[in-house]
């Protein structure tokens, strides 16, 4: 189970300010702290306030600053093609592109980029018609993504399918459909694609957000989830994930199992 730390994102005020003032310190602090908290990837997002023209330069800067202090690879989180490529050019290790949809036009642009830089890529199970409601429709789009990756020569296990969880207060019926999709993703090919979700979305504008996030994460892991974009500062969440590694017989038990998971 790979945790993608969500914190280096311009939608958070400290990062927004850091980008505005070209101050690398907050970026570095979050890179280090997220790595220490159990993250396996750092999500990097310029946020909504950076102009389209400036996004490539800002993305490049954020990745360089983060990787200066952390050995973690980054999840390059933007829909701006130029910003993705700018990030990939300076990235050390195997990057993860976040993301493409199953729109043919989008796949034709983003997948060759993943192939060129040997990066992983997150594929959203949605297209120009939006997010499907049922698991079956999500899986149909997931298959489109698998086939297109294969055609571009991207190994299937470099594809992280995101079945798109929606806030449970407005789209409650999606939660079980996403779980069903996670199970079926593993049947699409051999080796199977990986899966991911943007966890915090499930509790958008709800009360008890951490409770909902953690509970849904455990349910999703039980359904086969491989990774998630999460708040790794929620130490209960990270500890619970460490326990799932033991209970799924993926990590060998030892008394320090929480610590070893965080450090691994």
């Amino acid at each position, binding site marked *: 189970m790979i945790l993608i730390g969500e914190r280096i994102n311009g939608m958070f005020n400290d990062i927004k300010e850091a980008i505005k003032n070209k101050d690398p310190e907050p970026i570095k602090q979050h890179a280090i702290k997220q790595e220490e908290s159990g993250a396996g990837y750092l999500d990097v997002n310029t946020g909504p306030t950076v102009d389209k023209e400036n996004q490539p330069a800002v993305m490049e800067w954020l990745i360089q600053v983060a990787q200066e202090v952390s050995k973690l690879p980054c999840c390059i989180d933007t829909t701006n093609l130029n910003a993705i490529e700018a990030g990939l050019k300076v990235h050390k290790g195997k990057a993860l592109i976040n993301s493409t949809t199953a729109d043919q036009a989008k796949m034709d642009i983003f997948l060759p980029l993943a192939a060129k830089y040997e990066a992983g890529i997150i594929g959203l199970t949605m297209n120009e018609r939006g997010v499907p409601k049922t698991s079956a429709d999500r899986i149909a789009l997931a298959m489109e993504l698998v086939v297109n990756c294969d055609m571009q020569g991207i190994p299937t296990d470099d594809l992280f399918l995101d079945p798109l969880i929606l806030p449970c207060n407005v789209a409650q019926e999606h939660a079980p459909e996403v779980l069903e999709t996670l199970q079926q993703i593993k049947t699409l090919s051999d080796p199977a694609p990986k899966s991911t979700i943007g966890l915090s979305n499930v509790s958008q504008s709800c009360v008890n957000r951490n409770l909902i996030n953690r509970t849904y994460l455990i349910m999703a892991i039980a359904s086969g989830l491989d990774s998630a974009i999460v708040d790794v500062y929620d130490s209960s969440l990270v500890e619970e994930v460490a326990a799932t590694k033991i209970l799924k017989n993926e*990590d*060998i*038990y*030892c*008394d*320090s199992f929480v*610590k*070893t998971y965080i450090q*691994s």
Partner: protein
Amino acid sequence: MAVNIAKEKWTSKVSEMVIGTEPNAVKVGGEATLPFLHFEGEIPNRPAMALEVNDMEPTDWPETVTKPFKGVLSDPVAWAKKNVEYGADLIALNLVSADPENKDASGEECAETAKAVAEAVDVPLIILGCGVEEKDSEIIPAVGEALSGQNHLLGLATENNYKRLAATAMVHGHNVIASSPLDINLAKQLNILITEMNLGADKIAIDPLVGALGYGLEYAYSIMERSRLGALMGDKMLSQPIISFVGPEAWKAKESKSPIDENPAWGELEKRAILWEVSTAVAFAQGGSSLFVLRHPESVKQLKTHFEKLMVSNKY
């Protein structure tokens, strides 16, 4: 249509341990796949073999295994030299005299013996206490200090005495054997505790506690297999090379001692006894063990031939 041969892709490997110093260092571990599957990953080092030396003449060794050491059994230095002649890659020095029920030898006395042995042979040493945890945590630090910087392998560090042994290994530049009683969870935990003292993860060898063929071999085998799989899948706290104390176990077995007239169907004693030691080691090599402590020189000879054949690449 071309046939696509499925090969396992492992993400990690066993750590490589260096014992001794150049040019006489012995390397063990470093495997990037399951035992001897050269076609799937690198197997850089042949399993290494140590022959035992006791610092007191052994009283409970069967004659079959004392015979090759006639005349040297009460002289650890001469015995160690003999072992090198017999082809041992390392010497496993058992400081049994430290046992309060034997001579209750002090740390200084043990250090002197160890020093004399180390000076007499070029091969690196595995230096073991008397097995009394409390006493070992006194003598091993003294020995480690006397041989400072020589990068030997010290043991046995257990849940109860690992602190002093690990500290000695750190300060005086040695490796340490982490020993746990047939329990993979404890083995992992002990490695964590030792690395938390800042001894490098590549300075630890795992002793899972083995049994001889017919005496619980399969329990140790499955622990080895499981920890190797863990190592290959990225579990850093189970990625250490595994040491098997085959000699002490195999020569305790009834099959290594019972004369032919007692069990005519079992065949000639000497051949059978050596075979018992060899077969036990062969099984553990397939389980993932890469360092063997043995007793009989003929076992070393036979196993060397066997391991060398297994090291011939089967890449395709």
